[in-house]
């Protein structure tokens, strides 16, 4: 099947592209055309091949067969340089930034501005970076060291970097996966601007609301094939889901079946090292899903990490099931039954170069081993159980986690923690980069945990998700608790008001 509708001479065409990995057919015979000034959304389940297709266009991977046409030039394969020279800018799903350089240095990596003597013109680069950062709504400066940026800020940096290239096509592979509503809206404006300049945008996202808002045309991929496409007037939530998974999806959110119980963990005047100017008081209850909302940089991750034993708690008291509690290392938190599913799977969630199987048992090798020796069989059994439970798309759990699509990697991280017995579990952006089908599975899992009496805390930047999943929402602003909402008060407006301040 091909996706060809659209008008006029296409700006670029990918024709009959296949990409085969040993044991996996990532793309099979995919044809895709992109026109001037259109916003083309690419949707599909995790592992459908969206990123792979875009990496072919970005020159990052070589297709096994097929041709690429840009303007009137044909290629069997592109290199990254050729792709850039042809005017293709790429915001990658997995961020690739240089921690040890500043923001401007990252932005102009490989295209450094030079002085007449051939040295780097650091001032010029910083000056050029400033308006681009403003355009994407970033509050950090060109001089900032990237190591100090949060995941969301890095994402903004990548977007700004793509804008710094004089592009004809901008590929955005899940650019908003860790952005909150307000940055996302800024991005929507940027996309509209690009479009009116005649620049084409290829937009990949699992947040269907965004797709509905910005796309002119939607192409669905399923198992490496083109499953079909939707024209502007056909784009709606249900149609997109049908295109992606080939059927309708039942209710995304499940309501709680039990009332929330007693307090699992109570925070009294907690001050952490990252936000020493503010204190947090909060009770986390068993049996409820507590949504934690806030803007990028509000200190949500830092608070969860401090409780988990990463980063210091300076002052205040934590009470776990009636007893004072303080974890100095993650090990202590885990032993006390407090888990954290971290937001950055590449850096802290997974050992990418280890197998799926090893990743799943890493936090709990004790139970799959005897006399200190790991039992391969027990480990394998556990991995297979989690794979089936979470629907991780991998025949072979001995494959490296690096070979999975982004969404499936996230499921491996979840599998690691869900194979143990939590008392309290923090999910930091649990559905970052996860498709709708799997999202509903994860919501069901979280609900199941809560119903079983576990305290569930969900940090999320996805407004739909915060409102749909939570039983109670707290909002953080600049490290401070700016308010709490009960179910009856849930609305985008109310959350945003607390997150931004003012009205």
């Amino acid at each position: 099947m091909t996706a060809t509708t659209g008008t006029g001479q296409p700006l670029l065409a990918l024709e009959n592209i296949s990409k085969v990995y040993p044991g996996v057919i990532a793309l099979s015979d995919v044809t895709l055309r992109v026109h001037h000034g259109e916003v083309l959304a690419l949707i599909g389940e995790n592992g459908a091949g969206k990123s792979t297709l875009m990496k072919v266009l970005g020159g990052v991977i070589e297709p096994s067969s097929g041709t690429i046409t840009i303007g009137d030039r044909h290629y069997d394969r592109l290199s990254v340089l050729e792709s850039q020279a042809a005017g293709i800018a790429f915001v990658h799903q997995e961020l690739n930034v240089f921690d040890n350089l500043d923001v401007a240095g990252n932005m102009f990596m490989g295209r450094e501005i030079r002085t007449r003597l051939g040295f780097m013109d650091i001032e010029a680069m910083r000056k050029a970076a400033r308006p681009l950062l403003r355009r994407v709504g970033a509050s950090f400066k060109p001089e900032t060291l990237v190591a100090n940026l949060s995941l969301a800020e890095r994402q903004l940096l990548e977007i700004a970097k793509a804008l710094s290239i004089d592009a004809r096509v901008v590929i955005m592979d899940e650019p908003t996966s860790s952005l909150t509503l307000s940055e996302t809206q800024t991005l929507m404006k940027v996309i509209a601007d690009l479009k009116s300049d005649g620049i084409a945008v290829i937009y990949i996202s699992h947040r269907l609301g965004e797709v509905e808002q910005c796309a002119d045309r939607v192409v669905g991929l399923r198992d490496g094939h083109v499953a079909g496409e939707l024209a502007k007037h056909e784009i709606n939530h249900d149609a997109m889901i049908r295109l992606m998974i080939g059927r309708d999806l039942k209710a995304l959110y499940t309501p709680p079946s039990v009332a929330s119980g007693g307090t699992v963990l109570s925070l009294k005047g907690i001050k952490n090292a990252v936000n020493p100017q503010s204190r947090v008081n909060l009770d986390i209850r068993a049996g409820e899903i507590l949504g934690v909302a806030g803007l990028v940089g509000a200190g949500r991750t830092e608070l969860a990490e401090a409780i988990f034993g990463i980063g210091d708690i300076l002052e205040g008291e934590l009470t776990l099931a009636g007893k004072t509690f303080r974890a100095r290392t993650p090990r202590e938190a885990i032993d006390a039954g407090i888990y954290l599913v971290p937001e950055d799977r590449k850096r802290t969630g997974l050992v990418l170069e280890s197998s799926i199987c090893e990743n799943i048992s890493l936090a709990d090798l004790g139970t799959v081993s005897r006399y200190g020796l790991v039992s391969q069989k027990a480990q394998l059994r556990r991995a297979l159980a989690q794979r089936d439970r979470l629907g991780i798309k991998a025949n072979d759990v001995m494959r490296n986690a690096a070979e999975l699509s982004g969404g499936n990697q996230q499921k491996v991280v979840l599998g690691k923690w869900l194979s143990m017995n939590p008392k309290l579990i923090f999910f930091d952006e649990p559905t970052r980069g996860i498709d709708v089908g799997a999202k509903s599975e994860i919501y069901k899992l979280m609900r199941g945990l809560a119903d079983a009496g576990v305290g569930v805390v969900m940090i999320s930047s996805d407004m739909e998700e915060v409102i749909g999943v939570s039983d109670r929402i707290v909002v953080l602003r600049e490290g401070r608790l700016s308010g709490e909402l009960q179910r009856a008060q849930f609305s985008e407006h109310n959350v945003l008001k607390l997150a931004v301040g003012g009205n």
Partner: protein
Amino acid sequence: MQKKDMWLAVLILVVGAIVYMRNPLFISPINLGNTANLIGLFGLFAIGQAFVIMTGGIDLSVGSMIALLGVLFVELVGRFGVPWPLAILITVMAGTVMGLAHGLLVTKLKMQPFVVTLCGLLIYRGVARGYTGEATAGFPFGASFPELEWLTVGRSFGVPHSFIALIIVGIITWFVLHRSVFGRHLYAVGKNEDAARYSGVRTGLVITSAYVICAVLTSIAAIYFAMFTKSVQPSSHGNFYELYAIAAAVLGGFSLRGGEGSIIGVILGAVLIQQLQNLVNLLGIPSSLNFAVMGGVILAGVLADQQFNRYRERQRAARALDALNREAAAPS
């Protein structure tokens, strides 16, 4: 046994066959026994080094440790008349303290392993030379310690006991690295320290343990070396030995970035290196070229390994594409 290790074993056999054809003395019991002894001595601390390299670190101090601990052991037994089992204990304890110091400096004070152990290299050597006043430390004339000698330089059925010690240590460390929870943590820390920490692995403890294991094995090797040479010349004893250990690990498939390698690999690496030294002797190559031969072989070996991997990747992808095309061609 991993594929990589198997190729290394094949390489060792091929080199062995070639040397034998040029000089049949290669398989004479005397030559084999001597080489096995050297393999045992060098293999012991190469395994230690492998643990450190697994974490992404490096231990440059082992050569100097062998000198300093050798001096210590010989002095204890030869001059102060300390019973040798106690002397062994003290020597290993001293090694443990050094390893602990390296580990804590790296994990607690966040110093770089290269810097920490480079300073170790300088300090231990300096202390050994300073303490002895550059004089050779040796056993008094006519002294003999039959049990100790049996244990270290003795042979059973012609097999040197140092070699047997290597086999025993190899088996134990194989279980530790490849089958134990600690070993799994070691791999995880080497590949992604942050993710390991977030998974509740006590990364500081794991890394420190690696340095301690390295130092303990090195101190055992130091005792074997001291007994083998019978005297310790503090300015030259153990010079460059850290490089032999690192070379053995690299040949054995360890990545200096950490998280990769196997015990069988590093042992085979140690075997190959001693075989090369032997080759230089037997084939009448000037022994001054010793290092050049070693360097050349390591370079070629690592390069070949890399190229071969790339080739295999391409082959696998091509086969998969073929299968796809056939599937597409078949009527469906």
